[in-house]
């Protein structure tokens, strides 16, 4: 009896190994066979839900290039999508990118999702000059602004660009002159705060104090008690649960200063939570690459297509679906233009990408000399919707914003990389 039990165990283990070995088969790329696109998004860790939405965005773009048999195809070559999931840490993103490029032999890598990952992938791209790397939604500034990789393309805008129009709106329309900052302590919020401060400080505003909290911080008592009393508003660049925690604790402590939001601070996940601070959010200005209540036809068509294909997806496409959709569409349009020619280190394809300019659900997108996007950004304000819930209504559209937010590359506000202390206008 004992030997057959051991035999069963051996069998179970060999089944596991056989399944894994069957997946190990590597393959070589070819110039006439299918085109392989690798998709990299976060499917584990804090951004798992946005990661899933990212792949939905990719599939929406691929669906616009179907052949008669319903398969994805460009210039007579079938397209294969190979997905890999990371967990928002640069080390894992790098390993998955290596697997896609070196083991699966993808021709084009589209990703990653998170800011820190993007910086790591950019460095990796420099060591693989004959493959094309297109961004996912990673929005750290330095991914393309400082030491860019010649084969890394970003058709989505960075976190600072997302803030375009907000600094000016806060100073001129809302009349805020002195603003304190509360934000998470990593590259994406640094970029967001910088984007807000570029316009706000240039207009004459002052930021006397900044509070940086670790991602996932629960206790904001030291922040709440340290906020100066002579400020007009607080710029809050926190996401999801962090935003809810801070707003609740600030409201409970009797804080009454108005809030200015980052791109993920007052999105639907936060506006949908209940709490006494909800009433105080009405009138909160924020900005980002998309707006839920955008009434332009291209956006409405995009939302309709998303809802039709993904009935169990989010109620409205997130900025992650939007970004990955645009990046994938750019790749496919460029492939069409070069007739699927990826030979010669993909040089023709990369050139077509850098010159590409096309219409997206949020307006025209083109690239600057660092291969970073120039696109439209939306300034919003929280208002009561028709059913009594809170929604972000568009109040201004910043047209064709470049990575310097119109300041020009030599502006002193752009002289150093964004960090906790830079830019500063105390």
């Amino acid at each position, binding site marked *: 009896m004992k030997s057959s039990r051991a035999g069963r165990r051996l069998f179970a283990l060999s089944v596991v190994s056989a399944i894994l070995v069957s997946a190990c088969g*590597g393959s070589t790329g070819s110039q006439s066979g299918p085109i392989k696109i690798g998709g990299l998004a976060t499917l584990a860790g804090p951004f798992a839900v946005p990661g899933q939405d990212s792949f939905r965005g990719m599939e929406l773009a691929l669906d616009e290039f179907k052949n008669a048999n319903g398969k994805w195809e460009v210039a007579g070559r079938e397209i294969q999508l190979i997905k890999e999931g990371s967990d928002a840490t640069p080390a894992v993103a790098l390993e998955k990118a290596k697997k896609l490029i070196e083991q699966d032999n993808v021709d084009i890598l589209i990703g990653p999702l998170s800011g820190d990952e993007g910086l790591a992938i950019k460095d990796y791209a420099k060591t693989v000059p004959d493959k094309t790397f297109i961004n996912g939604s990673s929005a750290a500034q330095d991914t393309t602004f400082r030491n860019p990789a010649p084969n890394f393309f970003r058709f989505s805008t960075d976190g600072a660009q997302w803030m375009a129009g907000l600094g000016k709106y806060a100073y001129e329309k809302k009349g805020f002159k002195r603003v304190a900052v509360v934000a998470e302590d*990593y*590259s994406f919020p640094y970029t967001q705060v910088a984007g807000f401060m570029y316009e706000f400080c240039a207009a004459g505003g002052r930021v006397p104090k900044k509070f940086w909290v670790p991602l996932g911080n629960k206790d904001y008592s030291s922040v709440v008690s340290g906020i100066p009393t002579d400020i007009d508003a607080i710029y809050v660049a926190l996401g999801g649960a962090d935003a809810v925690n801070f707003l609740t604790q600030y409201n409970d402590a009797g804080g009454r200063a108005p809030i200015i939001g980052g791109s993920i601070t007052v999105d639907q996940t936060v506006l949908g939570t209940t709490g006494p601070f909800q009433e105080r959010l009405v009138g909160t200005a924020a900005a980002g690459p998309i707006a839920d209540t955008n009434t332009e036809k291209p956006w409405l068509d995009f939302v309709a297509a998303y809802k039709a294909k993904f009935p169990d997806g989010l109620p409205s496409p997130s900025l992650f679906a939007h970004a990955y959709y645009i990046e994938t569409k750019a790749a496919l349009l460029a492939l069409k233009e070069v007739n699927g020619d990826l030979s010669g280190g993909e040089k023709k394809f990369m050139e077509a990408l850098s010159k590409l300019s096309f219409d997206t659900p949020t307006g025209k997108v083109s690239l600057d000399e660092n291969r970073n996007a120039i696109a439209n950004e939306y300034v919003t304000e929280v208002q009561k919707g028709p059913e009594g819930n809170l929604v972000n209504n568009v109040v201004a559209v910043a047209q064709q914003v470049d990575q310097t937010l119109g300041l020009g590359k030599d502006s002193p506000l752009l002289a150093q990389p964004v960090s906790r202390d830079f830019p500063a206008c105390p």
Partner: protein
Amino acid sequence: MTRARKVPALAALLVPVALVLYPLLVPRFWILSIASQAIILGIVALSLVFMAGQGGMVSLAQAALAGLAAYMTAILTLRLGLPALPAGLIAVLIATLVGALFGAIASRSQGIYFLMLTLALAVGFFYLALQNYDLFGGHIGFAGVLGPTGSPRENPAAFYYLCLATAVAAYLSLRYLARAPLGLSFQGIRDNPRRMWALGYWVSLHRVAIFAIGGLVAGLSGVLGIWYRGSISPGTVDLTRTIDVLIIAVVGGLGHPIGAFVGALFFVLVQTFASSVVVLGFSFDERFNTLIGLSFLLVVLFAPDGLIGLAARARVLIGRRLADRRRDPGPPVVRPVPEPVPVDAGADPPSTPTQPLDRS
């Protein structure tokens, strides 16, 4: 030599030859992302297997000690401009000393309390690396660190041999230690600390020494790791990576140091290829973590003593089957059943002859 003994001897010869010839036969991805990564993870798991096996100390601080060595390598190389090899050696020394410090903190705890203390130390180090910008570079960490063999991408075989040599040296040293007097005293402390104390051994100091050696081996892994990646960030020492080391050690088998490397290879293969698996039309590309968890679960369920335990049992099974086949069954022998002796109810029971007692 019997046939059963020839097999392990042949394996003992083939395995080193295969390991040395390996980089000449496979593409770069398999040299670096599979084999080198497996060796690096195997070394940190080895430190845990050593501490758990010889010292009875299951420590969750090994990933943190490896990460500390990686951070120190980066700081010494990038901020102080030291060349790669001296920076790496000093980093290993620092990891050893910090391991001794951890040992001093945790030496009087055992079992679950020891585990919790080491977990607290590991998580504390993670938050230090995440939030400290002056020394540790915060969430960004450090990038652009090269090892003595240069960029692994450009010299994959050289880097692989560096990892292999380090792993072999660590493995053989720890195996030698297990039979040396110091190693025997470690095992004595593992099995019966009170008796060892009564015999005059300074138990706490020995535990500090065990942690220091664990820190040394983990430090080796950390240095090789940063030379492999070229970068270090807090994500490499977070809770997930801390637990990964324990999973590797358990899946490989805590009974023998080679289990650490077997577990690491299994771990790397599963992590790399789980997303490519398609079973009955269902692709695991978005559910790869489910498959990873399932495979670990299956191994632990069906092989509680790890993969090497399974291999040992397989060897016994094959040996038994070979032995069965060799024995000639011959014609069936019918042995006559002895006739039962009728017992007379009234008779005296047969008496055993005894010596008359000498009553003189």
